[in-house]
């Protein structure tokens, strides 16, 4: 089809003009004439922008789906994290990993640690999780005034190295200054 305005170039812009309720007119223009006549086509969007906005929308949708998820260890919800900007305990990174990863990626440009690793690796964290669980039991026992149980829990916590006592099985941990 040839452009109806210049009669030379290939018509690439096809429009339907609505003149009145019953009358419609078809127009076929080449790109140059379409621009000259003011029928410009905005091409400001880019694929990456569309994908990014889709990503943000998906993220928002995913976040909206899990407002009730609570960390079993510290009790924080994702909404509470969002409001405070701070996590409640080490477990939260696993509990909310799906939600936190896009944020980590946006801020750090990465979601994978490289660099220093403690000698004990992540064993310490797992040991710590046990102590934290005992500690919340201890709080309950104190609230219920079950002092016998509280004393037992306190012993167990200090045996695991939770407060004041050295971690068992460490040869270099016990020298006094």
């Amino acid at each position, binding site marked *: 089809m040839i452009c109806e305005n210049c009669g030379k170039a290939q018509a690439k812009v096809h429009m339907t003009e609505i003149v009145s309720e019953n009358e419609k007119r078809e127009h076929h223009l080449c790109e140059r004439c379409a621009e000259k006549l003011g029928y410009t086509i905005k091409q400001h969007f880019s694929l990456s922008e569309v994908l990014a906005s889709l990503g943000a929308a998906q993220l928002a949708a995913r976040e909206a789906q899990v407002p009730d998820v609570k960390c079993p260890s510290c009790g924080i919800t994702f909404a509470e994290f969002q409001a405070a900007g701070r996590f409640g305990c080490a477990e939260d990174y696993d509990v909310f990993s799906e939600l936190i990863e896009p944020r980590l990626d946006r801020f750090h440009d990465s979601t994978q640690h490289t660099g*220093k690793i403690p000698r004990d690796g992540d064993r310490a964290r797992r040991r710590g999780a046990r102590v934290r669980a005992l500690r919340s039991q201890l709080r309950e026992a104190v609230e219920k005034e079950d002092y016998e149980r509280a004393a037992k829990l306190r012993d167990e916590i200090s045996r695991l*190295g*939770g407060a004041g006592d050295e971690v068992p099985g460490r040869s270099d941990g016990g020298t*006094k200054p």
Partner: protein
Amino acid sequence: MTLDELVSTAGGWITGSGPDSEVVVSSRARLARNVASFPFSTRMSEEEREDLERLCREAISRAKVASPGFYVDLLAASPLDRKLLVERHLISREHEEATGQRGVAISDDECISIMVNEEDHLRLQALLPGFAIGEAWRKIDAVDTALEAHLDFAFHPKYGYLTACPTNAGTGLRVSSLLHLPALAITRQIEKVFQAVARLRLSVRGLYGEGTEATGHFYQISNESSLGKPEEEIVKNLEAVIPQIVNYERAAREALLRKDRSRLEDRMGRAYGVLRHARVVTSEEALALLSALKMGVHMGLVNGLAPGTVGELLVFSQPAHLQKREGRELSPAERDAIRGAYIRSRLSGTNDN
């Protein structure tokens, strides 16, 4: 040493020594660490905070990481003492203003400070004079390794060291240099530098960290991201950028000298004159004039004054330092008069120029 002795010593980063010290005031490396067996700060009971503090204090003393040194219980400390530690760059403003059981272990040379119960359980800091980011990192790395023998840190195979705020996760490392950039500010090139710095994903802050104004043309430049790159790479990145900014500042100072030497000398002379003779000096005025004087001394435009003296005055003329020296709280008006007298006494006996 004790906290009270801080006002009569000028050790650590205040000495005004160190590499590139005419532009780089100090360099810092800090690590954020959390003890695995406790919840993060916001979710701890007061009893747990006390337990954690005891555990950390004992680990610090056994590992001998801030030794010889002293410990300050910040809950028991007076507001003035807390302010003093902020002015000395030994604790953060957040740590000063927080509530509850918390403290800081400080080495006598003021190089190492370990904040306990901050936003993270531990914030380990090494602070050195001049451009010494690499050395600061190596020092704090050693402190961390020594503490690790006594404390279980929360570490995740994927996310690295776990922190209360995910922006610090991974290495938990922030390295920074405090730069004095008056010539770039006078020649209106500072914005360009900041834009370049931002493109490199580094951040610029004022004298006392996040959200503070860059007064006296002092700027802190630090890495933003802490996850995904090994510590050495983070350190190297900043080690590559800072010297370029230092060179821009040097070039700007030289350009000022060439273009308008007499105006520059006039500026220095006026600053020096006011500081030597004024009776009432506000802290803003002191900072602005001492900033000018600092540049003048380093450029050789002010004779008979050691760079270290100006560096000391910048620290010691701050409100908490003045009040601590006087041994009491002062009203702002009293403070300005005492500041004037203090600066005058420190600058008298220096040669006229």
